[in-house]
């Protein structure tokens, strides 16, 4: 599990855990396996809006745990987090 040790914001974060851009610095994380830089204060909802044509049919996992849709707005993304945005694809 990552704990934000490779965050490049240079601060330890105001809450002591992985920085969420506490000083306005961008947050560096992994989204769908790719390195991604997000503005300070970015939430899961913001990531979905940036990456997905529509939030419908989409689910999110952060560091291997599902983030329920109702919590997207309230969940900030932290440095070093591994985020997966998934939806339906032909298969099965």
């Amino acid at each position: 599990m990552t704990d934000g040790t490779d965050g490049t914001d240079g601060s330890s974060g105001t809450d002591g855990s992985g920085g969420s851009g506490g000083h306005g610095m961008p947050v560096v994380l992994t989204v769908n396996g790719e390195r991604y830089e997000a503005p300070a204060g970015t939430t899961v909802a913001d990531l979905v809006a940036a990456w997905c044509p529509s939030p419908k049919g989409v689910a999110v996992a952060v560091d291997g745990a599902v983030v329920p849709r109702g919590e997207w707005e309230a969940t900030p993304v932290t440095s070093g987090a591994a985020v997966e945005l998934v939806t339906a694809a032909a298969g099965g």
Partner: protein
Amino acid sequence: MTVDAAPDPFVVAGTELGSRLLLGTGGMTSPESLGRALVASGTALATVAVRRVDPSTRHSLVDLLEGLGIRILPNTAGCFTAADAVLTARLAREAFATDWVKLEVIGDDRTLLPDPIELVEAAEQLVDDGFVVLPYCGDDPVVARRLEQVGCAAVMPLGSPIGSGLGIRNPHNIELIVEQAGVPVVLDAGIGTASDACLAMELGCSAVLVASAVTRAEDPELMATAMRDAVRSGRAARRAGRISRRFVAEASSSFEGLVGR
């Protein structure tokens, strides 16, 4: 159009499904082709895989299925461990607002045969977590029984490996599974053409799941029609009660009234 006998509903976990033909969406060449095949099949339930969002995709599979009134059955395709399958199922539940999941845990990436140990483990966890679990399994009656015992809503034994088109390799085992099962048995994987689907129903399966045989056929829409008819025929034949197999002949014409006798 054939006349059916008494009502013959297909019920899984208390939900009546309007068709005994389930369709897998994997292998389809285009959304338009998939849409035509889905309509031609008359299916009420279609499987989808759970994959990373592709920001460049124009079409939505969810919208396509919802627009056709077809229920989505998410699949944990691509998972090799119980842990992966459980996470995938939970993501699918969030994404598609359904408790139903086709549980697929693969043990070998060449044959795509299920790993029965990881499969039963994952099934138990998902049942405990409130899922309606439809597990894709091998044709081993012992594993099928274990899956039912841990609470799966159906069992889905393969006829032969996924995409192989080899039909039902072990009809005897499928009959054994059908005989002992208290939940619906859905023949899933390896169907190659209509007669395979018909045979599955004649053996007593409640339904069949077909993907490659339709999506990779030269004419998917026509094959979907063939599968729809095959499933109906096989089911009717099963309900009609076939004649026994005999070692020698049994005359169908009486010997009475023969000229010259």
